[in-house]
């Protein structure tokens, strides 16, 4: 459902999460409602896919 993504330059985890169903780039901003939904999903046991 969600996937991490790495910065191609630094190879460190990006500051966004990809929502796979619609390829949305979700910033890791606590005020962003999509990020809030992501955090709730993780809290309920969701496993995020690692970056390629």
């Amino acid at each position: 459902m969600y996937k991490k993504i790495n910065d191609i330059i630094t190879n460190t985890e990006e500051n966004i999460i990809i929502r796979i169903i619609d390829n949305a780039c979700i910033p890791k901003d606590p005020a962003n409602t999509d990020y809030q939904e992501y955090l709730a999903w993780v809290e309920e046991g969701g496993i995020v896919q690692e970056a390629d």
Partner: protein
Amino acid sequence: MSVNINGTTGVSLVQDGVIVTADMASSVPLGTKNKIINGNLGINQRAVTGSVVLAAGVYGHDRWKAGASGCSYTFATTANVTTITISAGSLLQVIEGLNLQSGTHTLSWTGTATAKIDAGSYSASGVTGTATGGTNMTIDFSTGTLSLVQLEEGSTATPFEHRSYGQELALCQRYYQQYGSSGTTTAIGAGVWFSTTQVLALFPFIREMRTAPTMTVSGANWCMLYRVGALSVSNDTTPFDSIGATSARINNNGVVVAGVAGQGCFIQIQVGYFAYLNAEL
């Protein structure tokens, strides 16, 4: 009708020698009184048309989203007033707490729909509720017609405040912005060919958003990537990172035709493609 300014009674509206509204300045909210954004329903960036069917939480006209059971509605515009007819479900607007002060507020509209404020009960126009400054408030309309929606401080509904189209659009763009057109290309940024298949560029937003927005594109081929004497087309469905409230980085990793590393790059959204920025509540 005239306005009297008196050191004892304040500012009053006077008609035919009779005070119609006494101490108007303290009893009637004056100027930008409407806490509802897009209360005239004239802003429709998502370009919904016809019979609109929204799943729960999905937005139609700007700032208006479906309730927990979704929402089905049609709409028509006459003489610059848009009327929505809700046939099923409910239509909500969440008002950002930063725009609210504590106290009684009155919700008014034209039409047969009933509405409630937060956890209140559905009633006809003239619904009152209590806001807490800094806390979001939800306005919820059930089936029926509605237009000219207004929420204002105090316990008295006053005539609808008509803001200019530009003012209303700007207020909406704090929460949602859409780039692209079905009729022409849209220039959005410039940067550099980081490699033969990857472009990095700045995407400045036309207005600061409520928070860093969720960003999507309508398809992998969403933009044209210019280089010296030629151009390529994107082949990336997730081309954004470093997203902030005022700008994002285009990190377009994947192209139809390779570019030249080190060259500058100018970016235009292709005709019929779109980039969506969502910072709604």
